[in-house]
């Protein structure tokens, strides 16, 4: 296999505020639902209650670890992995017979920021140590490997908002280089009070529903969720007689090397990543049917991203789905990859949620209506704190 061999996507799992599985999520997107509300699981002393996209508490958790013993992010990850593996027709016996790796992106899932524990410690009290033990047992990729008895490489990617995209790209590398036969790749992140306060402090959260690419956009809304893609080699997929839902053609990544929180105004990193991904896929802009953009709704991100897309992929329809799900941080790239595959299958894309008015600074608007697709390829891309840019190129599958 060489570095642009297509990798089959045989199963998908996805849960977020839009739905508890991929089908529910896609129904919600095409119905135009935007299930945001002030947070219910935590409170903050900010005078404004910023809207978030929460998953209801009673989501179906699958897994052997007791609910109290692993953190929410890891539970979301296991649930999405379970759906994906069922979708791909993998039994536990098969998983253990083959070398299956796991590559998961996260941010909150790797942070030890239990406030109760730390507050007690600061006050000189004698807190219970189970907050620390739970954290040590909750590394998302390790939890999935443990749950399903996976024997391949295991990796937790902590690349901030591009983690999910990176995890899928890196998982595909493993298969291309022959290190393993299949990979469970994606991302997961829970809503968390600490992160909520952090984004508000950066003044990039919108007090109302976010409006990606809109002239009046004020910032992002946080969300939570998880998505997992099962990736496997074409040979394995054929041997199992499992249809590919899509093909991962390539992955490009680059760093702005500019600023800790702001994207490079000239979009240099995104251009480099897009260029690398297109070159590796041996495709051109003309082949691309649509782009699932990062589109957070912050003034800076949307300005830079739409300018780069206009320069490198002029006329290609693009949308942000964050108005349907919130910005799910480490899960975002994976959830959006899942949506991208589902849209390729359905051969249509929903409108870009939250957009009504074109910003004169932005060269081109996102799609404003449900749109039939022209083309069998799509791009899903993410931009992150620290200047990471990650791009995946997907091709239509057999379904």
């Amino acid at each position, binding site marked *: 296999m060489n570095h642009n061999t297509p990798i089959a996507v045989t199963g998908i799992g996805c849960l977020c505020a839009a739905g508890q599985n991929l089908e529910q999520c896609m129904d919600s997107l095409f119905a135009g639902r935007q299930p945001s509300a002030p947070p219910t699981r935590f409170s903050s002393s900010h005078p404004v209650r910023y809207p978030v996209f929460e998953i209801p508490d009673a989501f179906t958790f699958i897994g052997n670890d007791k609910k109290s013993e692993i953190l929410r992010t890891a539970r979301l990850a296991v649930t999405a992995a379970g759906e994906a593996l069922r979708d791909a027709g993998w039994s536990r016996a098969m998983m253990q017979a083959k070398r299956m790796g796991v590559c998961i992106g996260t941010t909150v899932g790797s942070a030890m920021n239990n406030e109760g524990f730390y507050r007690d410690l600061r006050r000189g009290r004698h807190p219970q140590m189970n907050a620390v033990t739970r954290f040590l047992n909750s590394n998302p990729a390790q939890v999935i490997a443990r749950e399903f008895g996976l024997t391949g490489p295991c990796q937790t990617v902590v690349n901030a908002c591009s983690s999910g995209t990176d995890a899928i790209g890196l998982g595909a590398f493993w298969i291309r280089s022959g290190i393993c036969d299949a990979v469970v790749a994606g991302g997961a992140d829970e809503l968390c009070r600490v992160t909520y306060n952090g984004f508000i402090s950066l*003044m990039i959260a919108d007090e109302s529903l976010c409006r990606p690419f809109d002239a009046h956009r004020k910032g992002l809304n946080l969300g939570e969720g998880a998505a997992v893609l099962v990736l496997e080699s074409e040979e394995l997929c054929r041997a199992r007689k499992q249809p590919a839902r899509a093909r991962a053609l390539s992955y490009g990544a680059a760093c702005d090397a500019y600023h800790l*929180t*702001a994207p490079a105004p000239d979009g240099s990193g995104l251009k480099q990543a897009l260029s690398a991904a297109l070159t590796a896929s041996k495709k051109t802009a003309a082949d691309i049917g649509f782009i699932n953009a990062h589109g957070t709704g912050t003034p800076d991100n949307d300005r830079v991203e739409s300018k780069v897309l206009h320069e490198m992929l002029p006329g290609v329809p693009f949308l942000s789905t964050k108005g349907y799900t919130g910005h799910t941080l480490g899960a975002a790239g994976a959830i959006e990859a899942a949506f991208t595959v589902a849209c390729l299958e359905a051969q249509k894309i929903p409108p870009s949620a939250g957009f009504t008015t074109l910003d004169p600074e932005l060269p081109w608007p996102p799609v404003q209506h449900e749109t039939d697709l022209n083309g069998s390829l799509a791009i899903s891309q993410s931009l992150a704190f620290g200047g990471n840019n990650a791009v995946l190129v997907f091709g239509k599958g057999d379904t």
Partner: protein
Amino acid sequence: MEEYKKMNTNAKLKDIIIEELNLEDLTPEEIDDDAPLFGEGLGLDSLDAVELVVQVQKHFGVEIKNMEEGRFAFRSINSLGDFIEERIAA
């Protein structure tokens, strides 16, 4: 907060900028009251701007609601000092 009450607002702001934005190589005397804080002048950036919003909240109890307000207030030490004193008096 106690030790700051005696100093005037501009002097307090300079101390906060040096201390909280980690500009330890600067002295208060080197910060011109009328020089731009962002871009040229002190050369602060977008992350400094939001940090300054939080520091103003913490040390003066004055809220800067968004970056339009921030851009206006942050033109210089003098403009920020005036902004704060107006809000406190109101």
